């Protein structure tokens, strides 16, 4: 199930809220687990078993690691086993196809490529499982005694399928003890709505243009920019909108989930972009891969290697296809360059140019990211910089004309000043409040209209 759907809004949402606030305190976590599993099973009626299995295995491993707190060797064996199980599951469900086809290509053999469907959210909850085991192993957090509490951490539906990736150490106290207040509840509802608007009104709209440009293929320079820019804003509003919805929902149940996006497109370096983009994923890789590899404390050569490893893995995490690895490697190169010399240069040049560099770097990155076919992606990048295709064409001009206002709104909404202005309007007396409320309701009505329109599918073939 996704949050931006009619079934979620009109049924699941109301039911889970009602149940959660009606049951007594000691049953609240159990209630959340039940609804979270139902939420998951809605989209994955079979793989929910895998989810439950992951919960049980990780729970037991946590207990064992706690039991072996004085015997580091045994604890280490458990954690290695646990990480291997988790990565093994992720590897099988997500990367088996890619690895086998690569193996076939390299060796010329024809091992049949396994066809496994990717369980929703596996990339997210696997990382959270690993964070639990490692945090317990490092004694940064105690193991959970009650499996329901552990299941609450791992399966909590707001962050289950698309993050934020919450480290166990950050959430454990809230699982055991938290306070629900009307203040948090109403603010959470607002945050949820903001995410809904981003997803439905901006991301879904821009997606049509991005897909159209991809469908047509071989774009002109203008068309390539239109398509990739549409994708640039689509993925930001899609993903950050989802995170807003998750954080807002968390608040409605008394939780405080970590922020995940902080206006990445105002960054003035690629390194800064990654401190503002999908922050919880970056944090996870820093905590559990980069620092354990030695981070930046063991000389420049090791630092460069560690950065390269982290970024290629980050790329591959986004999908089992080589364009994602290339995308990660692309960022590895940029970030290593910034670490070596570019960073100092960027601080000296006027802010506009360092912003332009970072933004164009992100846009080019999305071109690699959005084309599964690497050569098609590279052709589009060539077209963007005038090395392929014509200067303009009708779709390019048409997109500029018909999507101009949408792009403008998207750009404005992606800078921090927009949020501040809206906030100032809301807190500027009665008229401002009224305008703000009216605006909110209009956006809500338009979002509902868009969701209903999704369900509308004229079946006209019978008449053709």
């Amino acid at each position: 199930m996704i949050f931006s759907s009619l079934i979620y809004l009109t049924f699941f949402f109301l039911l889970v809220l009602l149940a959660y606030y009606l049951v007594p305190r000691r049953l609240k976590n159990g209630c959340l687990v039940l609804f979270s599993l139902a939420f998951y099973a809605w989209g994955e009626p079979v793989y929910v078993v895998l989810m439950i299995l992951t919960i049980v295995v990780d729970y037991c491993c946590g207990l064992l690691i706690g039991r072996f707190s004085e015997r580091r060797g045994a604890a280490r064996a458990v954690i290695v086993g646990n990480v291997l199980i988790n990565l093994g599951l992720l590897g099988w469900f997500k990367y088996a196809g890619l690895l086998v086809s690569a193996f076939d290509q390299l060796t010329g053999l024809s091992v049949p490529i396994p066809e496994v469907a990717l369980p929703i959210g596996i990339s997210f909850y696997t990382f959270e499982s690993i964070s639990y085991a490692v945090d317990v192993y490092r004694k940064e957090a105690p193991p959970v005694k009650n499996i329901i509490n552990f299941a609450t951490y791992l399966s909590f539906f707001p962050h289950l399928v698309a993050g934020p990736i919450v480290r166990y150490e950050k959430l454990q106290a809230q699982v055991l003890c938290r306070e629900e207040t009307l203040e948090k509840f109403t603010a959470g509802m607002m945050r949820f709505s903001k995410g809904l608007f981003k997803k439905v009104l901006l991301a879904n709209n821009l997606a049509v243009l991005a897909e159209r440009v991809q469908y047509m293929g071989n774009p002109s320079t203008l068309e390539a920019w239109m398509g990739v820019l549409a994708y640039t804003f689509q993925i930001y509003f899609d993903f950050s909108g989802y995170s807003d919805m998750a954080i807002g929902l968390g608040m409605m149940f008394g939780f405080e989930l970590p922020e995940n996006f902080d206006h990445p497109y105002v960054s003035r370096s690629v390194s800064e972009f990654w401190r503002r983009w999908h922050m919880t994923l970056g944090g996870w890789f820093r905590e559990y891969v980069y620092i354990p590899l030695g981070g930046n404390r063991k000389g420049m050569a090791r630092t460069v290697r560690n950065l390269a490893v982290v970024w290629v893995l980050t790329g591959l995490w986004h999908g089992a296809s080589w364009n994602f690895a290339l995308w990660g490697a692309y960022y590895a190169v940029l970030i290593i360059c910034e670490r070596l010399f570019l960073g100092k240069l960027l601080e000296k040049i006027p802010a506009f140019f360092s912003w332009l560099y970072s933004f164009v770097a992100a846009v080019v990155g999305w071109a690699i990211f959005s084309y599964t076919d690497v050569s098609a992606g590279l052709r589009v990048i060539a077209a963007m910089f005038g090395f392929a295709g014509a200067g303009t064409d009708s779709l390019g001009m048409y997109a500029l004309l018909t999507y101009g206002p949408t792009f403008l709104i998207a750009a404005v909404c992606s800078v921090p000043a927009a949020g501040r202005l809206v906030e100032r309007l809301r807190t500027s007396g009665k008229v401002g409040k009224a305008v703000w409320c009216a605006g909110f309701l209009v956006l809500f009505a338009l979002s509902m209209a868009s969701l209903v329109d999704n369900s509308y599918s004229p079946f006209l073939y019978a008449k053709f």
Partner: protein
Amino acid sequence: MKIQNVKEQWKKCEPEYAILTVLLLLCFVFGAAWILFAPKEDFSEDENRALEPAPKLSAASLLDGSFMESVEAYVGDHFPLRKEFISLYTVSQVAMGKRDVGGNYSTTPAEGGVYFGSEGHLYEVLLPDRTGTFEQNAQALANFAGAVDVPVYLLPAPSGSQEQGGNLPLFAPNHDQREELQRLRELAGEEAVVVNVFDDLASINGDYYFKTDHHWNTFGAYEAYEALCGEMGITPTPLDAYNLRTVTQPFYGTLYSKAVSFFQTPDRMYLPELKEEQDIRQYVNGTEEREGIYWEEYLEKKDKYSVYLGGNRGVDVVKNFDVQNGRKLLILKDSYANSMIPYLATNFSEIHLIDLRYYNFNVYDYIKEQGITDAAAIYSVKQLCDVSIANKLIVR
């Protein structure tokens, strides 16, 4: 939280947050109640499809996820104020500068949606075929022409947006269907005559398409009829041999269904009726006899184009007992052909209409059994790009 705390907590909230939260939750409650308890419609005329029936729960439907899909479809199909929301969506899109709606490029075949053209015209967004369907269909039609002993005429019908490009929004990209015309000519070679109606239907000569429907209108159908007769060496019945009856207003066609809005002006539809009546009968499915070929009941419904022959089915035979030339025309067709039948019926003793999408017998046997003398394939280019008929034409 305790009840006595609620009042205290309420004061701590931002008042507008609290009001809006309550309002939104009430909206969702209303939506849920409506879907659960309001009376349901089973058919959507606008979409021309049955709406999702109440979901049935079973272990199997739960495990394979079909129950969940059914629930989601049910909620979408029976949502309160559905049509109003959809119109609101269209209006908001146009207000934001969009000049097309309904596109979905992630489906196969991709759906281009509808352009808002000038003069209240809606047009299909034409896309190049990326599925190879057109190539297969064109090859199959060429093979058909080579395999039968009667003369074969292929008439690809261009879409309104192909013919009236001047009415499209500024810079609107559109696929050129002449590419398909050209390809069909190459494949057909000497085996069939390809009837070119692209120039006849161009907008400089008049408006040959409905404003809100993807079909050609009565005049467009007549132009195509004239062109076909020209290639067949038949003298066409002149248009002034007919009275043009205006049918019940308002008419909103299939393109409107893809772009539902408050602002669309209704369309007009005319039915040609011979001034000197002839004894024309339709044999539904080849057997069930009807007077004439107009199904008046459809004029009271949304789907008015089905007034011609009552829509599409596997086989229909139209006989004109006042034409004694013994010529029997077979037409492989989609619905574009239906509005040509009032004209063609004046030139042939029998017309056999086969819609391959619904026909599951051997066309080659049919031609022999019925003593067919001429064959035509009348298809919209867009249909040939979207739906495969190739497997129904395999030469056996």
